[in-house]
C-alpha cells in the first residue's frame, strides 16, 4: 500500500487520503475563450513521470497539501504546502 507523509500527521496509509487533481492550475479570467476555459477545466498533461498534484488527508486532519509523485513508481519526491511554488526538480 502506498504511504503518504501528511505534513501534519506524518506517514499514513493511502486509504486515509483523497487525491484532489492536478495542482498549480490557474483559473482563467471571465474573458477567457471557450478553448481557454476547456483547457483549464478538462485538458491535462497526464504525465508518465513526476506529477504535481493536490491531496487531502480526508480521514485524518482534513488538510490539503501538494505532492510531487511519480506516476509509474508512485514514489513521492516532495510534500509541500498549497501556497508554495512547485519544487524545482519537479
Amino acid at each position, binding site marked *: 500500500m502506498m504511504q503518504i507523509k501528511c505534513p501534519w500527521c506524518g506517514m499514513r496509509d*493511502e486509504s486515509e487520503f483523497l*487525491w484532489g487533481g492536478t495542482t498549480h492550475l490557474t483559473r482563467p479570467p471571465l474573458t477567457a475563450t*471557450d478553448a481557454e476555459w476547456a483547457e483549464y477545466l*478538462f*485538458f*491535462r498533461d*497526464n*504525465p508518465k513521470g513526476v506529477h504535481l498534484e493536490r491531496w487531502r488527508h480526508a480521514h485524518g486532519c482534513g488538510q490539503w497539501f501538494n505532492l510531487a509523485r511519480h506516476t509509474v513508481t*508512485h514514489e513521492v519526491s516532495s510534500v509541500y504546502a498549497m501556497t508554495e511554488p512547485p519544487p524545482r526538480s519537479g
Partner: protein
Amino acid sequence: MKYSALALLRGALTSHRNWVPVWRSPEPKASYDIVIVGGGGHGLATAYYLAKNHGITNVAVLERGWLGGGNTGRNTTIVRSNYLYPESARLYDFALRLYEGLSRQLNFNIMLSQRGLIDLAHSRHDLDSMARWVNAMHMNGVDAELLSRDEVAEWLPLLDMSPDARYPVLGGFLQRRAGTARHDAVAWGYARGADALGVDIIQNCEVTGFLTDASGRVVGVETSRGRIAAERIGIAAAGHSSVLAKLAGFRLPVVSYALQAMVTEPLKPALDAVVLSPSTGAYLSQSDKGEMVIGAFLDLFPSYAQRGSFAVLQAIVAATLAMFPSFSRLRLMRQWAGIVDVVHDSSPIIGPTPIPGLYINCGWGTGGFKAIPAGGWTLAHVLATGRNHELAEPFQLERFTTGRLIDEAAAAGIAH
C-alpha cells in the same frame, strides 16, 4: 488457412505439423498508407475494418510490446450495451451486434457467451435508478428487464439474500444479450483477419515520435525500429494516449488510472451470469476455465503502474465475499491492473486530433473491451474517408470546448 472441423481432422492426421502461424511477423516497410499505433483490440480491429470495409490494405499496426498485452489482456472480458444516452446506446449496441457475429466473420472463435448480466439493487434508490435505466434502454431499442428480488435469487443461488446480509438485495436488472468473450481471442482473431487481408502487424516496435511536414501535417512516425512514413496515422493506445499525444504536440482531456482485476483458482460451474454490484464497486463472472474473474473500481489517483493498490483489492474482495460468502475459501491466483484513459464524461473520443492527418480512438476509460468492434469500425471509417462515422460524430474532441458532453453515468457500470 481457414479453420474448420475438416482442418482440425487434417491436422490430427498429419500429427499437427501443418499448422501455420496465425499472423506473419514482417519487417516494417519504409512507408504505408495508414499506420495504426497500438496493437490492442481497438488498433487491430481498426486495421481489419480498414482492409475489410474500405479495401485499404497497405496498413501497419505498430505495437510497443505484444499483441493484446495492454488493456485487451487485462480486462474482465465483459461485453454489454446497457447505456443511458441514445448516442452511447447506438455506439455500444453496434459493438455488441458486431460481437454477436464476430466468430463467424473472423473464422476465429472469440467464445462469446451471452449469459446475461445482472446489476444488483441494494437500496430503494438503486431500484428507482434501475427502473429509469431499463426504460432508457428500451427507448434506445436495447434489451433490458427489471428483476424482482425472487428472480435475482433464482438466477444467483449463492448470493447472500438473507435478511441480515451486509448488502441487502432488493432486486436488479438484467441484459440478457450481455455476457463475456475471450479477450485474447478478440485481439488474435482481428490480428489474423487483418493479416490475411495484407496488413503488416509489427510487434516490439515502440513509437518514439511523430514526423510532420512544413504545414504541420503528420507524414510518419519515428520508432524503435526506424522511421516509417504514413499518409495518415491512427492512435489506439488507451491509457498511454496522453503520452503519444504529447509526442505529437497536443493535450487530451484524459487522466490515466489503474483499474484492477483478479482471478481465483478454478471451480465447478457456480455462477451463471455476470454480476455487478454498482454500490460496492465489485463485479464478477466465472470464466470458462472455472475461475471467478473479479473486477474492481479505480485506484483513484493517476498511475501508469500496471498493478493496483492493496487497499482497493481488499475492499473488492471484502465486498465480493459479503455477497457470496461461499467463495471465502477460494484462493486468488493472479491480480493485475490495466491503465485506463478516463475522460470527464466517461465517453470515448473517436476522430481527428489538432494535428492534420492524425486521428485518435481513446477515452473508453474502464469499458474499452466491450467497444472494440465499434471503436475499430469508426476509427477505420474516419481514417479511410476523412469524415467521421455517424456513430462517432457525437464523440469528438471538440465537445470539451463546445460543452456538448455525453455524461454517461452508466459507462462504468459501477460508481467510480
